[in-house]
């Protein structure tokens, strides 16, 4: 791949006609385009084309018919519910934490620690997260046992740890820090003068949040919530490490289809599921980009 770029590098330096120069300039960017072509665009194309291809060849929509089955519908419902609730709760709690940080000393140690910790924890969505919560509120977890010994059995009615409520709680562990990271810049953009202006015009705290800060922050808040949704919806590692026997979530269904040892593995269905995931994330992320642009009109 780099061999294609080398002649461009040596010959482009030679004085030459404008047209030739321009076409040689393109060669300099070739290694990059070849690489992403093979390892990013080609796999994406395989997914997109494969999901419309019948097992014997030819164009078909039958792969998507597999999504209609009850257990697939349940997988999508579970994934969407967990992602939505963990995004909404993570956004609210993260915004509250970000506000508590912003109102402190901007150069203080507390702020630096919280930002660094958020950077680490927002990426802490893998296998380790599953073990962290097994050690905390699993059946022999420290907090669970402690509470039970003191008369509070959090699993008295049902063991919800491995169910959507438990997964949602676990996801908050990386959703809240991510919200702090992405929402803090918007909060930083709020000027104290705007509050003073509101007060000098006779407005109360309620008026300030309702008519000034609220509308200014709303697009950023919504946008960040969408980002959190996409983040949770794409997550796979924690689910896989926690639900070792499989579970009703879209990523785990893809895993089962990909690693199925029986001869009935269906690559077409896996590709259709993957394409459905990409579609949902692309829609959500496009809305996020739109809202970010709107935010930057006033803040930042």
């Amino acid at each position: 791949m780099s061999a294609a770029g080398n002649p461009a590098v040596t010959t482009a330096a030679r004085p030459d006609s404008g047209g030739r120069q321009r076409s040689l300039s393109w060669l300099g960017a070739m290694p990059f385009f070849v690489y992403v072509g093979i390892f990013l665009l080609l796999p994406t194309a395989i997914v997109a084309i494969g999901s419309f291809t019948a097992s014997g060849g030819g164009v078909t929509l039958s792969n998507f018919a597999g999504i209609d089955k009850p257990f697939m519908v349940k997988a999508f419902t579970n994934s969407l519910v967990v992602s939505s609730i963990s995004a909404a709760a993570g956004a609210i709690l993260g915004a509250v934490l970000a506000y508590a940080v912003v109102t402190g000393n901007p150069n203080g140690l507390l702020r630096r620690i919280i930002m660094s910790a958020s950077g680490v924890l927002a990426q802490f969505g893998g296998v380790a997260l599953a073990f962290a919560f097994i050690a905390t509120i699993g059946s022999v977890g420290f907090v669970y046992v402690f509470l039970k010994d003191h008369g509070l059995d959090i699993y008295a009615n049902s063991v919800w740890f491995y169910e959507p409520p438990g997964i949602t709680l676990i996801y908050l562990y990386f959703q809240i820090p991510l919200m702090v990271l992405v929402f803090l810049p918007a909060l930083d953009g709020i000027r104290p003068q705007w509050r003073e202006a509101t007060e000098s015009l006779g407005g109360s705290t309620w008026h300030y949040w309702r008519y000034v800060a609220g509308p200014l922050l709303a697009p950023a808040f919504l946008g960040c919530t969408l980002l959190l949704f996409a983040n949770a919806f794409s997550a796979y590692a924690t689910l896989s490490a926690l639900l070792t026997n499989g579970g009703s979530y879209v990523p785990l269904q893809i895993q089962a289809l990909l690693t199925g040892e029986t001869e009935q593995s269906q690559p077409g269905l896996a590709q259709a599921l993957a394409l459905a995931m990409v579609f949902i994330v692309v829609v959500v992320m496009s809305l996020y980009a739109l809202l970010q642009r709107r935010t930057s009109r006033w803040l930042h």
Partner: protein
Amino acid sequence: MSRSRRFKLRIFRVVVLLLMGAFFLMPVGAMLEFSTRGNEVTSPRTLDAWLRIAQTPGLVKGIVTSLQLAVITSLGMLALLLPTMVWVRLRLPRISRIVEFICLLPLTVPAIALVVGLKPLYVWVNINVTPSVLALAFAYLILVLPYSYRSLDAGLAAIDLKTLSEAARSLGAGWGTVMLRIVIPNMPSAILNASLLSVALVLGEYTVANLLNFQNLQVEVAYVGLTDANTSTAVAVGALLLAFILLMVLTLVGGRLQQQHYIPGQRA
């Protein structure tokens, strides 16, 4: 700000920080507790699970594999991305939006979806290029693109690339010299940042490795966890604390590097 409002704000901050602190510290504490448990309920605290890390061949191999992958991915990312971004800024500014779009694309294609398309590709790679686990670096280079791009883009925006490179070129420097002796020394913190983000991502990667049937650190941790949860928990909390320390160091060192190079003498 009135006194009562300042008081209320203070109460609010203390309450929020205490509750959040509890939520985020509890699992870390529980992991430390869990990884130092003995076999019996009444047995004393023990570091056996931590010592078993070094005695579990799979884990040791996983750690070595993931470290190798982290180094290869970081270097590959720099070798592929940095010259391209410099070249595009100087010669092809028209396509900068396309490059940016492609680099941010992995954010909208979840790894679990990308791996579905990578599977047939890796069948080919395993046969024709290499069957080694290190082939994972090809895919990891794609996964780190968005974070590396942002970091390097910020670094390039902070230096006057055009003037610097034209000055070097007019003095007879080739493009290699421009890259190695002009661009790289002028943006150390951006390069450090991009590399460390790549390292962190590779060390924590599980999705692609697991579904392509490769054994890296996280796959081994999940596997060992099936039989010996204490040891896996020890690795998990160890990695988390290490990440904290690294990031703290980065914040301190990064800040200092930035000061030296971009805003000299600002803190007189």
